[in-house]
């Protein structure tokens, strides 16, 4: 007896959805690698924290979200922004400090936001986002939109009181909130095996009366599946979930970080674990997507990032007239 795969499993993606997910991951990777290269030339000012290596997390979660849903991000926020639909060219312009940027050059890399897309901002404060997400989830619940709030935070933020308070409040109020702990192994240079007592962030969920799971952060399908379950549960009134995503970031904590605290894990991850490589292998082997289709996406993404950098460099900077505007709505 030969069975076929005619019966689609719930949550499984069709070819177009797979291509979209790939495009998002590829766009994040290309964006970050380009920012890395451009930063080295000295043209990008300030502090920049890159998300390369972690693409499967933002993508695997945000692919389930729509405009009802809000996310809060971290200082390493470019990937979350792209996955939630923030305009890539405006993001690049923002990183260059241009008036055409997402925030008119007033926010920079650590504060890119687009509330119209439910992107509540990258956040320069470690642990700043989780309480805010309790609020967006509360608003969704009060208004009955079916929306959810997703707080992305790192292993560093997992030790912040704000995060632990938010986990508790989300459980007390049974909020449609998902807490995605992106454990890349290091808070700046400090290993999470040292800083996170009991080592697994997911273990803490039980103490707050919510499910806590660990997924392979290099595997888009693993994140996608766990997020699907958590988000559906939240939308249906089942309450919050903590998902710990484990992976490695490919670049330093910030651009310029000499990374003396790390051994050779990045090379190994790039070679054997990389989310884009694994995704490509898998979907082409199953025949769901042709390699040529993925190649075409790669080319389009390259063009987009080239154009984004070119336009950002050519765009005007904000002027003195912009300095004191936008502090208040009404003065």
């Amino acid at each position, binding site marked *: *007896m*030969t*069975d*076929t*795969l005619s*019966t689609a*499993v*719930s949550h*499984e993606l069709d070819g177009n959805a797979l291509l979209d997910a790939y495009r998002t991951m590829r766009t994040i990777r290309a964006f970050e690698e380009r920012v890395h290269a451009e930063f080295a030339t000295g043209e990008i000012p300030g502090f920049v924290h890159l998300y390369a290596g972690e693409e499967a997390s933002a993508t695997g979660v945000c692919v389930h979200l729509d405009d009802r849903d809000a996310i809060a991000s971290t200082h390493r926020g470019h990937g979350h922004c792209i996955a939630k639909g923030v305009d890539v060219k405006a993001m690049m312009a923002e990183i260059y400090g241009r008036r055409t940027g997402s925030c008119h050059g007033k926010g920079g890399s650590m504060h890119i936001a687009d509330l119209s897309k439910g992107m509540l901002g990258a956040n320069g404060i470690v642990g700043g986002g989780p309480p805010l997400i309790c609020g967006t989830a509360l608003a969704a619940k009060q208004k009955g939109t079916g929306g959810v709030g997703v707080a992305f935070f790192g292993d560093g933020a997992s030790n912040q009181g704000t995060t632990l308070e938010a986990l508790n409040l989300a459980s007390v109020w049974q909020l449609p909130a998902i807490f995605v702990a992106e454990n890349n192994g290091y808070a700046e240079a400090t290993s999470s*095996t040292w800083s996170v*007592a*009991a*080592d*697994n962030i*997911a*273990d803490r*969920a*039980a103490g707050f009366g919510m*499910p*806590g*799971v*660990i*997924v392979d952060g290099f*595997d888009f*399908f*693993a994140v*996608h*599946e*766990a997020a699907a*379950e*958590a988000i559906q*549960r939240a939308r249906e009134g089942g309450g919050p*979930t903590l*998902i*710990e995503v*484990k992976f490695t970031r490919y670049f330093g904590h910030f651009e310029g970080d000499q990374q003396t605290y790390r051994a050779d894990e990045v090379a190994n991850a790039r070679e054997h674990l990389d989310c884009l490589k694994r995704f490509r292998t*898998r979907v082409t*082997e*199953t*025949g*769901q997507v042709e390699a040529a289709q993925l190649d075409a996406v790669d080319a389009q993404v390259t063009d987009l990032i080239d154009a984004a950098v070119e336009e950002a460099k050519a765009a005007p900077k904000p002027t003195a007239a912009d300095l004191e505007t936008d502090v208040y709505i009404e003065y």
Partner: protein
Amino acid sequence: MTSDTVTVGVVANPASGRDIRRLVAQASVFPTAEKANMVQRLLTAFASVGVTRALLSTDLGGISAAVLRASRARRPGRDGAWPDVVFCADDAITGTALDTTNAVRRMVADGARLIVCLGGDGTARVAAAACGDVPLLALSTGTNNAFPRMREATVAGLAGGLVATGAVAAETGTRRATVLHVGTADRGETALVDVCASRSRHIGSRALWHPETLTELFCTFAEPDGIGLSSVAGQLCPSPRDEPDGVALTLAPPEHARWVVHAPIAPGLVVPVGVDAWRPLPVGEPVEIGLRGGVIAVDGERELELTGSETATVRLCAEGPRCVDVSAVLAEASANGLLCTENHVAQRKERQR
């Protein structure tokens, strides 16, 4: 190391018991702290029956760190004795199943007479593949534990220790398990409990909880009180652990199936599973799985992703691990008074009175 040295190995999987079944069902949570406590309870039991040296796995999940801290904080005279504790730190930690394999191999090479593994079915499977003929004691700290038993670690440690020292003979205290080998042309896996074919395309989050995707199920044994996929067979066509035959089932959507079994396929998840046919699975018979593409799960976790045209073959094999039978060991200990001694001084005083 003297000839009196009795060495055992303990491998604890830091990742077990944390998968998506805590989200899609209410699978148990086994925090790192409890796993570390179990290791310490084992050490106390080992020392009390004469084990002198314990090799412990290392991990980045906090278990070995907690045991190391505890070993440094022990108060002589107040805390019970432990064997000499040696951490296996020679292999780089990968954060994958390879860590379990490496640790067990090191322990076996270093003379361990018992391997204890803390984890779920997945961990036991990896340890079983690496421990050769050394007795295996699998303790449950995972999710879907059809193979390892839920046993108090002190009690299990006494039994394991008695086998390791030879106080209870291996022939009496251990049982040979059967295993299922499943493989494609170039890849293979070994299952202690079950092999299942799923129409799911990806390994994803590994666990299986959508019974409608399952097409075929093979079990080494199937107990009526089992948990996991083997419970389907356990209710419909049980197959005892101590008999060599296994069982093979053809699954189907419940609405079309000949039988519908309401089975606890995961903790907190009792779902209707459709079965069209079943038969005993004799040792040695190769069975080609009908599914093209899809995923092969072993012991409840999706492990092998098949490409579009690839097929896999399953075979039941009698040469599985030698597993410590805790009840049998301790019954033997009781029969022979292994944990009892006579207090001659007190008896003499009693007589004098």
